[in-house]
């Protein structure tokens, strides 16, 4: 995929598929990603009709319901432009699972296949399509990066986030213990098996904090919702008024670091 992307021309227009989590819970991350892409001279199109990739139903054992929602998204990207998704998880759903989801519907499957080849996870698009090399204008800081399991194992883009952060000359990226382990979110898993999910996120937050990093960044807001949600709960339990582990989407962090007169 990356090879193909490198060889293709630099696109002038892209579609931005925000994901329902970003639209409703992390809109700032979406806005920052769009701003960053526009600053690179890309026209960003946000199809107003977009909703959700359908993954929540798909992974919960309700493929029929997922299909209905996915079928709607298939209609949103008529031009042959890349579809950039600020999430490895939702991107993975569209890229790898849509074609399987429509296995019994040849017309839609063809659409899904065509869409699949145009879907890019945000950091992968920055690195491998745009060749983006951020110029760090912030002061020294240490952060830690959490990569989602879908970005790592499904989209195979676990290196691009680290590569982008590696370009920031004043940013040290700490490596947490059990770096590649899941944070315990897993969609409805966190509700259906709260004890196990809770133990996983507890361990994840401990390992992130143990690095001494001042914040965590991730390219997946599902993980952030889980990780930051637990970190804030722990702060509350232990009576801290300032967050012990703040965090944000990698787009927000990159944008701030590369803006003039930025302090962080």
């Amino acid at each position, binding site marked *: 995929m990356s090879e193909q992307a490198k060889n293709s021309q630099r696109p002038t227009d892209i579609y931005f598929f925000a994901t329902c989590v970003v639209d409703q819970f992390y809109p700032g991350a979406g806005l920052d990603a769009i701003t960053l892409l526009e600053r690179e001279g890309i026209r960003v199109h946000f199809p107003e009709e977009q909703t959700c990739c359908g993954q929540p139903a798909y992974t919960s054992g309700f493929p029929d319901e997922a299909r209905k929602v996915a079928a709607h998204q298939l209609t949103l990207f008529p031009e042959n432009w890349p579809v950039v998704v600020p999430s490895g998880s939702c991107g993975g759903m569209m890229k790898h699972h849509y074609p399987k989801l429509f296995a019994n519907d040849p017309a839609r499957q063809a659409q899904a296949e065509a869409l699949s080849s145009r879907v890019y996870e945000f950091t992968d698009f920055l690195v491998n399509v745009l060749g983006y090399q951020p110029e760090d204008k912030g002061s020294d800081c240490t952060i830690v990066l959490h990569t989602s399991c879908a970005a790592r194992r499904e989209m195979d883009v676990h290196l691009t986030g680290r590569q982008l952060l590696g370009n920031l000359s004043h940013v040290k990226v700490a490596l947490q213990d059990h770096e590649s382990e899941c944070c315990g979110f897993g969609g409805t898993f966190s509700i259906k*098996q709260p004890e196990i999910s809770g133990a*996983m996120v507890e361990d994840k937050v401990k390992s992130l904090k143990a690095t001494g990093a001042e914040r965590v960044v991730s390219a997946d807001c599902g993980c952030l919702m889980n990780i930051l*949600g637990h970190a804030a709960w722990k702060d509350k339990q232990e009576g801290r008024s300032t967050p012990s582990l703040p965090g944000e989407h990698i787009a927000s962090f990159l944008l701030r670091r590369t803006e003039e007169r930025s302090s962080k």
Partner: protein
Amino acid sequence: MNAPLPEHALQFMPSAGFRARSKEVVENPFLRKSFRGAMDFLIDKRITQFPDKEELESLRTLGEHIRQYNLGKLPDILEQLETRLTENGVHVHWAETPDEANAIILGICQKHSAKLMIKGKSMVSEEIELNHAAEAAGIDAMESDMGEYIVQLAGEKPSHIIMPAIHKTKEEIAKLFYEKVPGIDYTDNVDALIQIGRNVLREKFLVADIGLSGVNFAVAETGTLCLVENEGNGRMSTTVPPVHIAITGIEKIVEKLEHVPPLLSLLTRSATGQNISTYFNMISGPRKSHEKDGPTEVHLVLLDNGRSQAYADEQLRKTLQCIRCGACMNHCPVYTRIGGHAYGTTYPGPIGKIISPHMLGLEATATMATASSLCGACGEVCPVKIPIPDLLMRLREESFTAPHANPAMRGQGAGYSALVTGIWRGWAFVYRSPFWYRTVTWLGSRFGWLMPSKQGPWTTVRVPLKPAPKRLRDMLKERG
């Protein structure tokens, strides 16, 4: 650090008790630390065996192809295996259920008036609960694999398919031996403990009437039973007693001898991080007239127990590719948190979640498939590339959709709830419609402050979720 397992974690119960059992383990810091340490050790050992990623990937692809090729020809090669084994003088038996398998094995024991059966490690014998059946028939079934010996002494079940006693600390084993083995002094020296076990077991090998073992690969073209082991107890069990009974699942067959080396290499490297196991036994029949040792009678029991149900479905068939290395459990963040006993099934961990529903029905196992974040660590390390996350999603679907005619699985629809299905239908109604999505999310952004502070299981360890006051689409409009 004596961290006793909770009482009910030691008993095999239907998966209805899964949440309660896993809760007790995750709330026990000693067990959490002990499981994590053990799994890290196994993960590190495996990775040293695969320094070359490309070699690993090509070997995994080869392993996958070999397993798929042989499953594709399974009916034919099972027949071929039976023919060759019979020519070699091995008695072949077919068992559809655990009860049938036990009846066959106990029938052989009774024919020989057997009192003592010495067992090499066999997960299939655990699957059929042979030890209970033997005990009920007045036959002493004794485990000779060190890990199995320990869990048998403790009155437990294996918590891992390769490392049966991985849940036990050295100190617990020391205490157990001191209490259960007559005439020994207390020691927690590992070498001394192993020596104690060996001394007990050596005696038993010599007097056992029956030796029982599992099979790692059965080769159809030659009629050979391959057995992988590290302690020599497998070789003793299959050569010293006058009668050897091997038991295996019907899926463990390969057509050709040349299929074995790649699978063996994948197995030992993935399982214990060994380039090769200490022992690799190839059993081709009973003692011949000119031979001085070996059993005079050899039997093979081929068990179905739900495997043909998995076989009948193209996707579910991939479950049967498994070569039982246990790497999926070693790398599983869920197994690492709760250990093997919490699952309540013979096979724990990711492979247990996908194979047990065929053995026990979805009624008893419906919750197991939900105990995964679908992180994919299992599929990533599986030496034969079983798409475990996809299979977990399939099992969720089989369990939660309304019961229908001609189901692919026993217990299909066992987890069906009209309410939950209705919620997902409602969700799809909103999310497939831009109008309803806009309306519902607009309400969410305006009235997010009304979200309750207690949001069920989510807020047991997290702050409540609140939609942002402005959606991305609102922010984009404002920006112009």
